[in-house]
């Protein structure tokens, strides 16, 4: 009887004229969401009452710190009759959470409600970000894309353009290769007292701002997009062991090392958000980072740059001879596999509501930093005018590559964070030594497990949600 009721409920949702559940479908159902204070959640939390009015289900969102949240999810999912039915998930976690069986497979639900959720409008890589072993374990609520931000006002300044071309022999435009990126970083690095765009600087200006901190693996967030842009892979496809010490990884580490000279002096302690601060204050010529922070560059209440200059946006540079890649990530919502069937159905209804095309458009219009993942929103002319970086996010999805999703991702971030940081600080002689050290440590942990298991962990099979 319960299954029949669920089937009827599901059908009602699927064929509903409004494309969502009708009032009272989930009367009495109470859901709790284990989340962080991420923009994708803080925008939704104040309006969950609207969902209750719509469906009858009451949702409470509890926000916790990012560090430790994954452990709390794993513990929560280990208990029967869980306290939390909904989970906020960062895409690299799908390996750990997939292996632990913590999350419900959403594949069938997505297929069932494909029309309602405008599946064709969602950038495919954002779904792939949440896939583990061919199962879709979470649904994107904010799609992150790694891209390049630069000082457009400086790049378009005639004196700077002329000086750059005279020095390097090619025009000053957003870097397409890492060699160009280094040239631009060198060119714009100035001391206090020097001139920049016709003005005398009262403090130093930097050519680049990059995260070199080992804390929370910050340096790896900058290293991996560069490594991937040189065609590097995380894992050896034959053995499932660490492959992040090959030529591409070496090139990436050396690019970062060359850029050290053009970074702020506190580069070794720069975490991702402090690094973005340099761009937001207009104190650096260029900086690449996740698109979740880019919205600040359009808002004078959150950044200094809009009042002193203008930000420009471009795809992240590439290694020579490689196609322009984009690193993606996804901040997503998932369902606890231990929830009851009714709770799961209500939770899925909530996910559909909270990540819907309409809701995401509403967030965009309100000025939210939620990073969009619907093609129609990113290509909307009015929104593109408001958020000039939308076109870049849309264009760069074609060659997108997903983030690391291995169950040992945290180990990788920790080990590579330390080894790369030591190399940048000059404590390790060469990039090769640093990367070999890191891979050796990772492999020591991985070799405990049989090869077939290691190969399963790197299997990037797609969920069968597209016809």
């Amino acid at each position: 009887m319960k299954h029949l009721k669920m089937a009827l409920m599901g059908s009602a949702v699927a064929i509903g004229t409004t494309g969502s559940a009708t009032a009272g479908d989930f009367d009495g159902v109470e859901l709790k969401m284990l989340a962080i204070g991420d923009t994708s959640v803080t925008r939704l939390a104040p309006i969950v009452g609207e969902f209750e009015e719509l469906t009858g289900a009451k949702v409470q969102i509890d926000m916790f710190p990012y560090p430790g949240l994954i452990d709390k999810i794993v513990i929560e999912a280990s208990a029967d009759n869980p306290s939390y039915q909904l989970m906020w998930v960062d895409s690299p976690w799908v390996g750990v959470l997939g292996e632990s069986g913590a999350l419900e497979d959403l594949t069938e639900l997505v297929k069932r409600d494909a029309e309602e959720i405008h599946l064709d409008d969602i950038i495919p890589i954002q779904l792939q970000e949440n896939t583990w072993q061919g199962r879709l374990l979470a649904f994107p609520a904010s799609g992150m894309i790694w891209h390049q931000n630069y000082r457009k006002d400086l790049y378009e300044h005639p004196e700077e353009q002329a000086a750059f071309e005279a020095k390097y022999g090619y025009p000053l435009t957003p870097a397409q290769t890492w060699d160009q990126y280094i040239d631009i970083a060198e060119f714009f690095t100035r001391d206090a007292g020097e001139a920049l765009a016709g003005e005398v600087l009262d403090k130093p200006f930097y050519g680049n701002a990059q995260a070199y901190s080992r804390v929370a693996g910050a340096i790896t967030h900058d290293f991996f997009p560069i490594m991937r842009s040189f065609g590097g892979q995380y894992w050896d496809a034959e053995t499932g062991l660490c492959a992040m010490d090959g030529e591409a990884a070496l090139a990436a580490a050396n690019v970062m090392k060359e850029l050290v000279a053009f970074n702020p002096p506190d580069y070794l302690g720069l975490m991702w958000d402090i690094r973005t601060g340099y761009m937001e204050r207009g104190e650096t010529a260029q900086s690449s980072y996740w698109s979740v922070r880019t919205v600040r560059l359009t808002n004078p209440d959150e950044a200094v740059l809009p009042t002193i200059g203008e930000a420009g946006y471009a795809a992240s540079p590439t290694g020579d001879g490689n196609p322009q890649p984009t690193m993606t990530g996804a901040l997503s919502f998932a369902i606890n596999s231990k929830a009851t069937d009714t709770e799961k159905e209500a939770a899925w209804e909530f996910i559909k509501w909270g990540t819907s095309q309409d809701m995401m458009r509403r967030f965009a219009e309100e000025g939210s930093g939620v990073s969009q993942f619907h093609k129609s929103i990113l290509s909307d002319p009015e929104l593109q005018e408001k958020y000039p970086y939308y076109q870049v996010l849309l264009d760069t999805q074609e060659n997108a590559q997903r983030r690391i999703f291995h169950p040992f991702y945290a180990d990788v971030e920790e080990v590579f964070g330390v080894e790369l940081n030591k190399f940048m600080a000059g404590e390790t002689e060469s990039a090769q030594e640093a990367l070999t050290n890191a891979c050796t440590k990772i492999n020591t942990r991985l070799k405990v497990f049989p090869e077939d298991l290691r190969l399963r962990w790197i299997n990037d099979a797609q969920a069968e949600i597209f016809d």
Partner: protein
Amino acid sequence: MSAPSKRQTVLVYLLLAVVLIVFLTPIYLIASSSVKPSPIMFQKPPAFLFTPTLEHYESLFGMRPFAKFMLNSLVVSFGSTAFSLTFGTLAAYAISRIRHKRMNDVAFWILSMRMFPPIAVVVPYYIIFKTVGLLDTPLALIIVYSTANIPLTVWLMKGFFDEVPMALEEAAAVDGYGLFETFWRITLPLAAPGLAVSAVFCFVFSWNEFLFALMLTGSEAQTVTVAVMSFWSSDAVQWGRIMAGSFIILIPGVIFVLTCQRWLVRGLTMGSVK
């Protein structure tokens, strides 16, 4: 002993100034960052002159029920401190006074309770509290913190009770005091500095603890340490709010320590001079 020379006095004050700068700089940074506008939060060199803003405090209390989280922390910290002092003091008195060849082993066994790495016991605690329905309640944290605080209290108080001469208790017995009356009216007041020291350690541990508070609470019993760290999200670390929360968090601890200060100084030095 001659009075210090002017030069010595100046040197002492200089040294004190250095120590004060070292200890007060982080507090100054927390306080100033809590009222600094976000765009200039990490400006280099730091902005010392700026128009202060209360936006971080407003959003701290506006976006989350921070007052409730403060209350939770106070309930948990005072609850655990009271619980630990009550039972820890009684246990310490017993260990101090009972003469038995295995009593030192008992004392060590009690101390060993504190040696468990928290991460090793967090899952069992979670399952136990989930089973008995105490998950996400202040009582769960009071119990957990007390398991760490009681051993500390026992060991601290045992030292203080050992210092109280048996002759005083024997005199009390001659005057007709019973065992508990002797403990309550004679021994405990003499060991009051120990109570103050124990109370401070118990309170500070409970107030600052993070791991258990993260794992064993939800929105009902969340404490300030977790609430403040919750402003560390994936897209931004909201330092302004973290600093505002941190500054508020400092206040109860400072008040508590200052309240206990009179006994604390004597407690920390008691027994150091024969």
